[in-house]
């Protein structure tokens, strides 16, 4: 079963151990790798309103379950120092991409990125972006081929046709968009 969730909604979500039922941390940032458009893990804050960041991170491979209300891990051992997959220079956090201008390959600016939409199952993949042109947010589907620089996030021109207003039903928009790209390629 998969679940569509905004990356921003994960911020502050408690990280809870299954063995001791303790909230050992909370999500600070979602770290993903552009190349595969996939979440590689989370940076963490200590729990509590004024608690600071934790040095340890949570790699996606050590997440037991990501639910609506908490990120579950088997035990506190799941947290560790940032290593290769998490610290890799190819990655970035959702914060790096927020505010970036979204540009189609046809050269039309669609707005700026406000949030990432993740499809969470066994992996967590970036399947879209919430974009805004000053007004309310709209959802733009992507496949795993979008490219991003400091200046812009480049998406196929066809993506514009699949912009969706709300997250319910966005999953089918992502599917339809990807189907279109496949047909173009074939």
């Amino acid at each position, binding site marked *: 079963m998969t679940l569509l969730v905004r990356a921003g909604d994960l911020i502050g979500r408690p990280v809870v151990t299954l063995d001791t*039922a303790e909230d050992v941390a909370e999500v600070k940032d979602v770290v993903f790798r552009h190349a595969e458009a996939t979440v590689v893990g989370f940076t963490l804050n200590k729990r509590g309103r004024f608690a600071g960041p934790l040095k340890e991170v949570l790699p996606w491979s050590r997440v037991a379950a*990501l639910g609506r209300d908490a990120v*579950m891990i088997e035990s506190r051992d799941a947290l560790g120092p940032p290593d290769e997959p998490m610290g890799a220079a190819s990655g970035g956090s959702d914060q790096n991409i927020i505010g970036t201008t979204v540009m189609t390959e046809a050269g039309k600016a669609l707005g700026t990125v406000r949030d990432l939409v993740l499809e969470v199952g066994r992996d967590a993949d970036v399947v879209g972006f919430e974009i805004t042109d000053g007004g309310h947010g709209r959802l733009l589907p992507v496949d795993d081929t979008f490219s991003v620089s400091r200046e812009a996030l480049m998406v196929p021109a066809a993506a514009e046709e699949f912009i969706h207003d709300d997250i319910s039903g966005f999953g089918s928009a992502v599917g339809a968009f990807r189907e279109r790209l496949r047909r173009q390629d074939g």
Partner: protein
Amino acid sequence: MRFSDALGTPVLSRDDAEHLGKVRRMLVDVGQRRITAVHIDGRKKKALLVEWDGLAGFGPDAVVVAADDALRGPADDHELAMVSGDLDWVGRRVLTDGGDDAGVVEDVEFDPSTGQVTMLVTDRDTYDADRLRALGPYCVIVTR
């Protein structure tokens, strides 16, 4: 029987029929789904525990302690946390092992003849005890 029924039940000594106090809370081993000890609210200030195995009977009107030397204090940090109320069941949030909210604990049902915990009662649902996974400072975890 439920925890809410058991709370306040008088605790008597079998040896001399003396009133030792009242049931204050149950200490549960979640892994074994079993009550390990009963916390007695006595005249003494220090927490008083009696092992489940040291009970002669757990009835609707009284809990009878087999021998007064079955009474003891908290043995470790975990028991200390429990008698301090840091791990009380009622009012504690419930999460599934999938990370979804599952309400708040309202009561726990147990078999007074064996001390076996049989059911978790939340404000939304009930869970058979074999779905209990952990009790901790943040929540109770149940399996999906």
